[in-house]
């Protein structure tokens, strides 16, 4: 199956096309999406941890819209990169580690949305109290996810079906 994906015209186009709008464009979108997704999370997490304490917390909820847009940018560009190099990713344990870290980090961000931003009657100090541990954990997990992603380029054992 993976062999078929790898040999498909689309996969070959992403991988080998001399066009600047194939592989390099997709990987650029993936980097920009990372900046937006993790950057927006970072702002919420830092505020929950007391940075810019004079800033009202509740309006930061709007940043979740940016995070969702960025999340789907990452899913689409990530799937395209996977189609280009299915064997390279799927034979590397680091790839599963990366997906797991992203999954947990994003779930925790959604938990912050429900627990901290979900109830408009909460006072700021209660919001911060509820969000503190979640904020610390998401920051650690995002750092881990970015690192695991960066290391994909250095930890693969196979690049394609033939070797």
């Amino acid at each position, binding site marked *: 199956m993976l062999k078929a994906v790898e040999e498909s015209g689309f996969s070959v186009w992403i991988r080998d096309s001399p066009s*600047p709008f194939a592989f390099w464009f997709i990987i650029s979108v993936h980097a920009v999406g990372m900046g937006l997704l993790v950057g927006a999370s*970072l702002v919420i997490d830092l505020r929950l941890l007391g940075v810019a304490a004079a800033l009202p917390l509740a309006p930061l909820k709007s940043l979740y819209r940016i995070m969702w847009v960025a999340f789907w940018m990452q899913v689409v560009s990530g799937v395209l990169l996977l189609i280009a190099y299915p064997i390279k990713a799927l034979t590397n344990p680091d790839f599963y580690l990366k997906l797991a870290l992203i999954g947990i980090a994003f779930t925790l961000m959604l938990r912050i949305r429900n627990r901290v931003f979900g109830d408009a009657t909460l006072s700021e100090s209660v919001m911060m109290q509820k969000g503190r541990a979640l904020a610390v954990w998401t920051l650690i997990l995002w750092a881990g996810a970015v690192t695991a992603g960066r290391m994909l380029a250095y930890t693969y054992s196979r690049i394609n079906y033939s070797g």
Partner: protein
Amino acid sequence: MYSAHFHLLLNHWPIIGTFVGLCLFVVSLIANQDDLKQTSLAVFSFLSLLSIPAYMSGNAAQQVIKDFPGVSAEMIQSHQGAALLSLIIMEITGGFALIGLWQFSRVDKGGGKPILPGWNVFAVLILAVATMACMAITGNTGGEIRHPEVVSGTSSALGALGGKILPSIQYVVVDYSMWVWPILEDLHFIGLILIIGAIGVVNLRVMGFLKQLPVAPLHRFIPWGIAGFVINIVSGVLFFIGMPDFYTNNIDFQIKMLAMVLAGSNLLFFHCTSYFRVCARLGPGDEAPALAKFVAASSIFLWIALIVLGRYMPFFEVAN
């Protein structure tokens, strides 16, 4: 046009600029003029941005002239060593100047004047004098490479020291362990996230999104973005020192350095000077002036462009 032209275009600015900035700073301290203090601090920070491509373009100049008759490899090495140490001390000076400048962008609750801490004035003064001395030596060793009529014959201790440090940095970045480069790349990504998150959220608000947020407390995120920028300047310069031939003639890299100076200047002059008080007064729902909106939008555009230019760099790799 050769990439070497960039070196001639850029390399005089840090030398003359540091001198002008230092004179201006001394006058501003004697006259106790806040605007003038702010101007000279901004000059130092801006020069620390400009010095990065000035240093890097030296490699292009080296490639062009190294085989010319009468050009000594030793002199080039000495110049490069002095340039590296000058760059390092220039960056430290620019960093301290930026910390001082930060005071001017904050809105004082009491409405009083911004106070530049004494330790900061002292640090910037000492560092600027040291930078000027190093830059003068660098300019001198550089001039001697192509102008035999002014060769003094004296060897430069600064050049010799820098000439020893440069290969050790190169060794650590490239050969010491295969993991140093990936770790630097990882830090470069984390710096990128700090920049996009912290500077991006301030710019979005100024542009008119997230309007329920007052701007003054939001401005507290800017130091986190500056921290990201510092991480990326350090890791980026280390990449260049590690593999200069990969970058020197790469058009994508050259555009990226231009974008870096522009984005850094935007951060410096917009977010870190008293101009930002125009925005810092904005409460929930208030609209920023059109010019501020434009500057905020250009900041977001430039930082995103830097990410894209970074990712496209291998696509534009030139064979050496």
